[in-house]
């Protein structure tokens, strides 16, 4: 993995001013300096890396390589030490093993408090305490070998619920010893926000960050060109990817996607989604195939996308009608089996196309 450098396109090259015609030339030069004078020599930098079991990539325009892969890798490694379920010594794993809770760090605290807010806003359809269900349905770190029965689900639900944890200062309490957290539905988005903060701290204002399909965007490409984002096709076949469903230009903000087309398994002849409904204890089963959410930051977009998957199409549209800071593009299966898509009012950068 290396930081790739490419020279910025040579838009500053001007035709030599003609004799007796200096003035217009100078005017053009001055205008260009006004337009681009703040950052006269922006160059493209690219970072490509591996984190959270997936890939990440950062593209930014800056006068120099202000942020290196070493910095982004180390940020993401620190992040894993807080909330990765794959590291047995991470804070989240220690919390899960604890009887009453533990003292948490800033990352953990921000994630939990945001997850609790979103849980409340979605009527409990997303829930940070969903881990026992995720494990029981075979999507956890350690795979369960059977499908849970009615009784088992009922018992598991006793350990699930946002009211079973409480944050006081930097101490996160459990009110039931069996409570276990899974922040995977929101953490990836937040890690993208933290990468964006890192870039901002280094005065980088034109970037696109992508980690596991979750994005943060700011500014423009050279020539005031917007960043363009493809919404992946839903074949779920990484060996033969489907063409992009849509290409959008969302501008500043975050784009995340939740979909059941890639991660699911089969049991008893039907597909089991990896998304759990924390209210019923069963995997989400409705018309939704994927939801792409726009919000100002990725913790919000990522925090809500699973909720929209669980709400289903109509409830999501009704929910989003009241929110001017958030929008969604949704792919769903119609009752006749055909795949359709729709978009909420405030989904930014979407060009309505006629089919």
């Amino acid at each position, binding site marked *: 993995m290396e930081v790739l450098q490419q020279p910025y396109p040579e838009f500053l090259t001007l035709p030599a001013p003609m004799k007796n015609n200096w003035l217009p030339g100078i005017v053009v030069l001055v205008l260009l300096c006004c337009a681009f004078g703040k950052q006269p020599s922006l160059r493209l930098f690219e970072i490509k890396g591996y984190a959270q079991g997936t890939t990440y990539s950062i593209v930014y325009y800056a006068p120099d390589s202000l942020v290196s892969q070493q910095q982004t890798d180390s940020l993401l490694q620190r992040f894993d030490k807080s909330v990765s379920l794959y590291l047995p010594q991470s804070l989240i794993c220690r919390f899960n093993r604890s009887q009453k809770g533990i003292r948490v760090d800033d990352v953990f605290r921000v994630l939990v408090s945001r997850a609790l807010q979103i849980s409340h806003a979605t009527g409990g359809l997303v829930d940070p305490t969903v881990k026992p269900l995720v494990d029981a349905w075979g999507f956890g770190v350690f795979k369960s070998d059977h499908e849970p029965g009615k009784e088992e689900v009922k018992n598991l639900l006793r350990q699930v619920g946002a009211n079973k944890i409480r944050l006081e200062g930097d101490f996160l309490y459990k009110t039931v010893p069996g409570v276990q957290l899974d922040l995977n539905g929101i953490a990836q988005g937040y890690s993208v926000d933290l990468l964006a903060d890192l870039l901002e701290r280094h005065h980088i204002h034109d970037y696109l960050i992508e980690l*596991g399909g979750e994005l943060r965007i700011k500014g423009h490409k050279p020539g005031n060109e917007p960043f363009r984002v*493809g919404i992946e096709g839903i074949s779920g076949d990484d060996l033969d990817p489907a063409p992009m469903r849509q290409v959008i230009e969302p501008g500043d903000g975050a784009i995340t996607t939740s979909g059941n087309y*890639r991660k699911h398994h089969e049991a008893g002849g039907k597909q089991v989604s990896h998304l759990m409904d924390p209210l019923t204890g069963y995997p989400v089963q409705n018309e939704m195939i994927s939801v792409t959410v726009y919000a100002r930051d990725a913790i919000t977009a990522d925090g809500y996308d699973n909720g929209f998957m669980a709400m289903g199409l109509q409830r999501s549209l009704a929910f989003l009608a009241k929110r001017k800071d958030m929008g969604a593009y949704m792919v769903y299966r119609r009752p006749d089996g055909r795949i359709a898509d729709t978009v909420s009012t405030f989904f930014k950068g979407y060009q309505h196309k006629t089919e």
Partner: protein
Amino acid sequence: MERRTFLKNTGLLSGGLLIGNKLSALQPAGEPIKIAVIGCGDRGTGIMNILNGMPEQFRITALCDVLDFRLTAAQKLVKTGTVKTYIDYKKLLDDKEVDAVIVAVPLYLHYPVAADVIRSGRHLYLEKTMTYTIDQALDLVTLMHGRNEQVLQVGHQYRYSPLYYRVKEMIHKGYLGKVTQVDCRWDRNGNWRRPVPNPALERAINWRMYREYSGGLVAELLSHQIDFINWAFDTHPQEFFATGGIDVFKDGRETYDNVQLMLRYPDPGLIGNFGAMCGNAHDGYLFKIKGTLGTVSLLTDQGMFYPEKKFLSEKGTVDGVTGATRIVWNKEGGTPILPEATKDGTCYAFNDFYQKIKRRELPDSNVFTGARTAISVHLANQALYSQKVCSWDSSYKIG
């Protein structure tokens, strides 16, 4: 397309075998198949261990081996009721409590034992390579002619795993583009010998070391990959180039411990590089299929797909892509072909053997594909030991 070797593929691709990592959904019905094992060496007992885990499908009723200590050891493995033991396989074939027979004897004995099993009317699971010589392979094809009620499956078990079915499907769907080379290795750093309790048994136990009994590394190891390429591309090599020697273990063995084959497949426009040796284990099992669009890299139980780099960067006109999180295993842009490692290929092979017997259908690894691979292996060995380029003779009538 070679007609008869290509039967029945579609059903398997769309059927239960490929869904997840689970075995097919067909529930065992009725009595388990009464099965006998002729040849209770490493492979025979290895299969018995697998069958012990499939009690609803198979019950081991009889065992045969010429070495009594092996017979005694094998008898102890049987977990599914009583078992009769035989020194003479012909006596075993008179046993009425035998519906199907596994033949796992040294290669030179495959043909005589298999032919007797077929004539006895039993279903047959015949270890690879199907036969030692070309004529024997063609004879078994003739012998199976018209025996539609009898199932003969050849033990190229690796290709029965869902992973290898998926790769075959990927090749057919053109995911790899135009495939022009395959690289295969099966290396070890060791003498490939089995312990011999009594020097008199050296040739019986270490039969793989002697050309009279064995086709060496090509027949015992590389045949799996040769068979997969034949099957996946529905073809066979036309020209055989080979070199090798006894370079590591000069211990009286006759079969080479260092071999390299170059096979030319003119129909698909393909070169196959197959190598095996006993003097370095770094690569171990290696299987790469290389096309204009990407490479498949396989182990026996897991595989990766690497799109060609120029296509990775061609995201089109977008700067980023949003989607459900994609799981990758490494930093080189590879994508796992199946989400989890598969089980031992023998499990899938015997699950399918059971189903094919119940349905009286032609297995995917059948007498025709088995003959094609046996002839390929034999010609490769001929090229290896004669230091001549050998060619497939159009007079071989398989299908």
